[in-house]
């Protein structure tokens, strides 16, 4: 079945059963290789679909490239929707662990969904690499099957807070975020590190997910005399916030972590985006990442890249590398090998610490919007 490799075509295929069968021939060419499956779980429908679809394409891209090369197995990618809902996520995870051909999986943008499915992967000893969820609770549990390729909230907020205090010279920062695990976690982490550096927090405004009007919060910030805004959310809200910030005449720098380092942000905020600054892991400025961008464009996916495409791409790459070395029979050994790996990918050199958290170096560089483009700012 290729239905998961080619989502959109697969759907059309499922309308008429005959069409679904017609998609099969691509497999016949490579029948001499043993066949395995890799799982992907993420939100590919509903409000977070843009994150999930971008990552899903990264996952499929990595698999297609392996299949095109001389990889010892023929791989099929099984992509499942978790709809940002923990219960749906558990269903998806159980579907994967019950399929004897699925060897390992990558998953989740929402931390609550990851936290719900981890016990399942743990019970069935199936390796899971988290590509998007960033709550520290995920690796705190230190389940042997679970590793994560995304930096936690701590890793990126700490150097950003230090940079804001030392280089930017901010004294009094207003924090704006959403109340999701991502937003609230970022806001808390930044506050901790910034106050450690002696900075003051002018105000903290966490708004429920789905808020599209930040003017009341911004008006308050304007009156509070803050000298910078830290935003802890994702692209859509970042774009809205920046636009409205400029509109009410609050001309102070907006900073954040790489969650909204995306051309989409500039498209949304328009001219107002000018001067926005985000931290970005320095290790990710490498030629392999440029190659992935090019391959992604060449592949012609229906959806554009998301900031998480590269994480899913590398998570899949790590699974592929380990399976090539260890084989598919001993899942405990697979999980152990993932923890022990040193993988050169688009994120830089990924190694995992004793809790399964990536140790990609935490040096950041600052990207700033200049003339409608993200450019690297000297530290």
């Amino acid at each position: 079945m290729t239905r998961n490799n080619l989502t959109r075509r697969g759907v059309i295929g499922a309308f008429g059963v005959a069409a679904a069968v017609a998609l099969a021939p691509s497999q016949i060419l490579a029948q001499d290789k043993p066949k395995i499956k890799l799982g992907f779980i993420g939100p590919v429908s509903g409000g977070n679909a843009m994150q999930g679809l971008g990552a899903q394409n990264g996952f499929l891209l990595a698999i297609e490239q392996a299949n095109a090369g001389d990889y010892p197995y023929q791989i099929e990618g099984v992509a499942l929707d978790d709809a940002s809902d923990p219960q749906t996520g558990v269903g998806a995870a159980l579907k994967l662990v019950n399929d004897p051909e699925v060897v390992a999986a990558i998953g989740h943008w929402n931390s609550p969904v990851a936290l719900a499915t981890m016990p399942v992967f743990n019970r069935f000893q199936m390796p899971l690499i988290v590509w998007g969820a960033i709550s520290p609770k995920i690796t705190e549990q230190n389940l042997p099957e679970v590793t994560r390729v995304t930096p936690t909230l701590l890793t990126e907020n700490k150097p950003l807070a230090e940079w804001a205090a030392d280089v930017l010279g901010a004294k009094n920062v207003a924090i704006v975020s959403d109340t999701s695990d991502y937003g609230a976690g970022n806001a808390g982490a930044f506050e901790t590190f910034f106050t450690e550096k002696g900075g003051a927090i002018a105000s903290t405004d966490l708004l429920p997910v789905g808020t599209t009007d930040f003017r009341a919060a911004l008006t308050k910030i304007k009156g509070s005399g803050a000298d910078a805004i830290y935003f802890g959310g994702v692209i859509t809200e970042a774009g809205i916030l920046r636009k409205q910030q400029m509109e009410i005449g609050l001309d102070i720098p907006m900073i954040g972590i790489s969650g909204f380092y995306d051309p989409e942000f500039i498209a949304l905020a328009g001219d107002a985006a000018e001067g926005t600054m985000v931290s970005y892991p320095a290790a990710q400025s490498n030629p392999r990442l440029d190659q992935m961008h090019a391959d992604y464009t060449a592949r012609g996916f229906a959806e554009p890249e998301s900031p998480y495409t590269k994480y899913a791409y590398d998570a899949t790459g790590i699974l592929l590398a380990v399976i090539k070395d260890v084989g598919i029979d001993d899942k405990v050994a697979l999980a152990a090998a993932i923890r022990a790996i040193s993988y050169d990918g688009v994120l830089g050199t990924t190694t995992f610490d004793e809790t399964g958290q990536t140790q990609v170096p935490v040096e950041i560089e600052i990207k700033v919007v200049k003339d409608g483009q993200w450019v690297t700012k000297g530290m």
Partner: protein
Amino acid sequence: MDAQLAQYLMNWLVLGSIYTLVALGFSLLFGVLDVIHFSHGDVSIVAPFVVLATVQALISTVLPADSIAALVLACAVAIVAVGLVGVLLDWLVIRRFRNAPAMMALVATVALGTVVRELIRTFYPQGSNPKPFPRLIESSVTFGDLPVPLFSLFVIGVSVLMVAVLFMVMGHTRLGVRIRAVAEDRNIARLMAIRPDRIFAVTFFIASAVGAIGGIFFASYAGVVRFDFGVQLGLIGFSAAVIGGLGSMQGAILGSLLIAGIDTLVQATMADGASYRLVFSFLLVILVLVLKPSGILGKPIMVKV
């Protein structure tokens, strides 16, 4: 401090105006058809997408880029198109629940809302991603030393105008008389040679078209639009219409101003107000309905003996 207060007042009025445009649709549909059209918010948010698509089509063919005409024309197209979408949805789905219990229509239209959202997401190019939406009017005027965006005044003005027009239509035209007749008793209206089906279609058109203006303003005020923005807009519009009193247009306005007011007030005055903005808005809803069970200006439920 005065500037800040003025800013809050402005936010409140603009938000209240946008909610009013959406709440009016809920109220009108309930008053005339006795139906809760829970997908009204999602239908309204179709409008900004139609605007974006039309602008793109226009400037790539006949009109020069960044022409105001394209935007104005697109808005007109969107308002009419969304009005027709409302009529279409009624014809396809909602009319089948005319005589069903109220909760069936409510559940069906919740599902219908999901269909509308997922259709936008699937068929609009890269519909999962948020789209930047232009300010309808960019410039601003200055009162004293306080800059006021013309757009805000425009939103308030258009809303007031729409309300006035609706009152005019309902109160002083033949169409309005017919609509009110059907709302009162569709069978007797039929005896008076009024065809209820036509009136229903017209009502759906008006409600959806007014909602479309609300949707365009909402997107323009946020600066961005995404396929699922209709959920919260619809929920708030619905709540505003209900606490104001379903079927009462004055009630819809009052309810909208109340909800926008508590939202702004909580965020402006409470330390952790922003994270609790929905909590307070919906506690207000509960409180109002406990005190006034059929909304502030709703007709009290008659218990006939």
